[in-house]
Every structure is written in structure tokens, then in C-alpha cells.
């Protein structure tokens, strides 16, 4: 069995990173959280767009699952929650409620509030002091060899073009099959991109109830799409997909699901929830590059992968369409398009572009990609991780707002 060098965590888990997480309990605390993480090395925060005010319970629970999910993720060593005061705001994101949920993972978690610290400025000062202590304590945890069955990776495909379904996604699918054979786990998502491929995916579900739920998720989303009164091609495939040769949503979906490899689907998950079983899972989620990677991290993935087509991107060092957007999980950008690989050398971590040039096979590229994933799990930084910038995050809300 393959292995990687991971940070040991309680409950037989292992991190690929060793972050101290500073969580704002509500958007009003974002100002304090960013001051602390700007000041203290080795920290991460999650600044989400979309205020929680006026949202119904299901959507407030979604924010809470994201925040607690980042904290429970094995890549997080300890968490500091910054709140207004005890009992303030909606109960789902009330600071002590968040801490109680996070404590279940058996890792250090502490709440600091404006009320108890004696003001917002004082909260920042105490947050900095505590974060520095946690970062030092985190440094005493050392990487050690752990078997690949402790690894869970999440995948999104994007900026899709014709290489996505032929080379990039199948190579990832092959790597996913190899990790699952080693006892590890993989989550794929993007419910819109099951439309046209959902019957095949439902047939791969190990459990009938999961198959039913998967078909239901697709049905609900397709009905919502029809309610817009638009041809879905005005929404997805995106104009850039169509320019790159993907003509219909069905065509995009059939290429997209190649990233799910050939393993049985062991779980069909609600948004931002952790799988109960190892192996391959599908999670309901929004395809946006500013939303999905963090949702995969909240589900527990220790690495998020962005499988990019990218043929229509600008021809020299294009900006990546979201940077470090998996919060505590490294985001690895891969492509099956040799043209993308050469124009975005500074951003692409792995290319399976040799396939469409007839120089390699999906099997060979899948093996090479799995080796690269294990290296990044062991501490090799992704090209995106060398940049300090993190894009603002967008939770996948159901809406409406009131």
C-alpha cells in the first residue's frame, strides 16, 4: 500500500497541512479574523460572501457546517473562534455552539468574544496572542508516514474544454481509482453536471437509497433550471465551454463524470457533510470555483483538485480562476490540455497533456498523478500555495433571502 507523510491527529486521522484556523462567528467578526491572520504566520481564516442575516435555517446550517468542517478537517491543528458575545446572533453560528461541534474532533478549540475581551481591538490583541501560542504548539507535531487510506481528496473540473472529458478527467478518475484501491476516499460534486449522466451514476451507487437521492438531487436542480425560463445553455455550458467545443450540457456532464473513475459510489452526501464510508462519494454542490473547493474541504478533504481544461484562457500566464479557495486544504490545479499546461506553467501542478498528443495513456498519467498527489499530501506545496492571496468564498445557499 502507498503512504504519505502526514501530521497525526486524534481519531486515526492525518493532516497534509498543519494550520491554525481563526474563524469569525458571523461576518461582523471578519475584520478581527483577518487582522489576526495577517499578523500571525501559519494561520488561515475563512471570509465568506453572503451575509447570514435573513437566511432560513437550512442555509444558516450550511454556513455552520462549512465553518465547523474547516475546523474538523485533519489539516487544522487548532481553531480560535472570534465572536461578539455569548448567545449573540443566530444559534447555528453562535460562537460557543460552533466550538461544541468542533470539539467533537478532539482538537484544541477556544472562543474569544468582543464582550469578554473588552472591545474589538482587544479581541484582535488576544486573538493574536492565542494564535501565536497555537502556531508554536502546532510546530511540535511532526509528519510521520501514514498509509494512503487516511487520505481523502476532492475534485472539481472547470474551464472545461474537449480535453477535459478525454484526458484530464479520465486521468484524475484513474488516480481516484488507485487511491480508493489503497483504502482512501474521493469526493466529486457539481450536481448540474450530472444532468445527462445521472442514470449511469445512479447505477454505480452501492446503496439503493443513495441512488434514489442522487436522481432526486438532479431532478430538483433540472426543475429549478427550467423555472428560469432559459435554455440552460445560456447558463451551463458556459460561453467559454461552448467556444472550446462543448456544445450541450449533456456533453459537458458526460465528460465531467469521467473524473469519478470507475469505483462504486459508496455515499451520496448533502452539501458540506462528511462521508460515513470510505471510497468514492458524490456530494451535492455548486460548480463555482469560488464555492466548491471550500465545500470539499468542509467535507474533510485534505487536498482539493481543480481539473482544468482552459483552452480559451489568455495565452500567457493567465490568472487562475480562484486561488487558495479551499481554506485549509491545498488546491492543486491540473490539466489534460497541453496548450493550457504550457501557457499556465506558473500555475499548473500536473499535466496529462501527453494523452491527446498520443504520447501517453490515461493509465500512465493516472499513476503519475497519484504519485504527485501523495507528494503534495506529504508537504510539497502547490504552485497556488506559494501565493498569500485567498479569494473570497461563496457558500452554496439554497435561498431565498428575507
Amino acid at each position, binding site marked *: 500500500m502507498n503512504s504519505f507523510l502526514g501530521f497525526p491527529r486524534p481519531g486515526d486521522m492525518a493532516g497534509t497541512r498543519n494550520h491554525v484556523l481563526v474563524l469569525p462567528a458571523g461576518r461582523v467578526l471578519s475584520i478581527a479574523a483577518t487582522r489576526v491572520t495577517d499578523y500571525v504566520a501559519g494561520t488561515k481564516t475563512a471570509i465568506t460572501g453572503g451575509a447570514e442575516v435573513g437566511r432560513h435555517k437550512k442555509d444558516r446550517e450550511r454556513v455552520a457546517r462549512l465553518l465547523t468542517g474547516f475546523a474538523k478537517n485533519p489539516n487544522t491543528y487548532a481553531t480560535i473562534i472570534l465572536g461578539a458575545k455569548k448567545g449573540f446572533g443566530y444559534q447555528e453560528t453562535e460562537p460557543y455552539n460552533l466550538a461544541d461541534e468542533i470539539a467533537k474532533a478532539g482538537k484544541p478549540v477556544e472562543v474569544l468574544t468582543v464582550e469578554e475581551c473588552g472591545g474589538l481591538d482587544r479581541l484582535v490583541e488576544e486573538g493574536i496572542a492565542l494564535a501565536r501560542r497555537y502556531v508554536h504548539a502546532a510546530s511540535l507535531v511532526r509528519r510521520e508516514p501514514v498509509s494512503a487510506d487516511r487520505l481523502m481528496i476532492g475534485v472539481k473540473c472547470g474551464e472545461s474544454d474537449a480535453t477535459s472529458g478525454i484526458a484530464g478527467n479520465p486521468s484524475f478518475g484513474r488516480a481516484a481509482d488507485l487511491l480508493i484501491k489503497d483504502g482512501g476516499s474521493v469526493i466529486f460534486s457539481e450536481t448540474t453536471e450530472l444532468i445527462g449522466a445521472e442514470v449511469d451514476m445512479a447505477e454505480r451507487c452501492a446503496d439503493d437509497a443513495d441512488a434514489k437521492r442522487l436522481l432526486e438531487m438532479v431532478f430538483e436542480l433540472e426543475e429549478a433550471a427550467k423555472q428560469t425560463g432559459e435554455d440552460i445553455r445560456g447558463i451551463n455550458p458556459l460561453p467559454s465551454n461552448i467556444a472550446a467545443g462543448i456544445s450541450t450540457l*449533456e456533453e459537458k456532464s458526460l465528460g465531467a463524470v469521467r473524473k469519478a473513475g470507475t469505483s462504486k459510489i459508496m455515499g451520496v452526501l448533502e452539501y458540506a457533510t462528511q462521508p460515513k464510508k470510505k471510497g468514492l462519494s458524490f456530494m451535492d454542490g455548486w460548480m463555482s470555483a469560488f464555492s466548491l473547493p471550500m465545500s470539499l474541504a468542509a467535507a474533510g478533504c485534505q487536498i482539493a483538485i481543480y481539473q482544468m481544461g482552459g483552452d480559451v484562457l489568455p495565452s500567457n500566464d493567465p490568472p487562475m480562476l480562484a486561488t487558495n479557495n479551499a481554506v485549509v486544504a491545498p488546491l492543486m490545479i491540473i490539466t489534460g490540455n497541453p496548450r493550457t499546461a504550457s501557457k499556465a506553467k506558473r500555475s499548473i501542478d500536473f499535466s496529462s497533456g501527453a494523452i491527446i498528443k498520443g504520447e501517453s495513456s490515461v493509465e500512465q498519467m493516472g499513476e503519475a498523478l497519484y504519485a504527485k498527489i501523495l507528494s503534495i499530501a506529504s508537504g510539497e506545496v502547490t504552485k497556488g500555495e506559494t501565493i498569500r492571496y485567498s479569494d473570497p468564498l461563496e457558500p452554496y445557499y439554497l435561498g431565498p433571502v428575507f
Partner: protein
Amino acid sequence: MFHALQLEPVDNVATVVTEVGKGTVLTIQTPAETITLTSVEPIPFGHKIALSAIEKGEVIKKYGRPIGRAINSIPKGGLVGAHNIEGVRGRGDLVRKQGASK
């Protein structure tokens, strides 16, 4: 080397993996063998070429599955894309048209 890939034997389109001009004799890799086909118009990288003549309304297959239907007839060796095929899923525009005609 090949110019295009047919992914499954039932597919009536192949994906072109290089820039192809009009009148090019393409080498196409199918699951079983290599075949040749002449393009009747330019086919850009990543776009699809018709492996046989396709009638209006005929189902387009790629990955062995339907990806939509032809809205015009398409000649063998022609470009297959958003200008001459349409998806049938998630079509809110069709729902609205049906609603309006009631």
C-alpha cells in the same frame, strides 16, 4: 499520430485534437482501429466532426451516450457544434414556449 478521437463505437462524432482546415484527410482513432475521413470545413481544436451524414432531429452520440439532437442536417466531415445541435435537458426556454402557446 491522430487528428481526432472517436470515444465509443456507437458515437457519430469524433473530437478533433488539432487545428484542422477544410479538405484535410484526418486520421481518426476509434476504439478498434484507425480510419480516415475528409473534413468539409475547418474544424477548430477541441470541436467535433461528423463521422457520417446526420439528419435534422437525429440524436448525436459521444461517450456512447446522447449529447443532444441535430437542428440542421450535417454532412459527413462537417463541424458539429452549438450552431447545429441542441441539448434536450434543462430547457427552460421550451417550458416557457409551451406555457405561452396554451
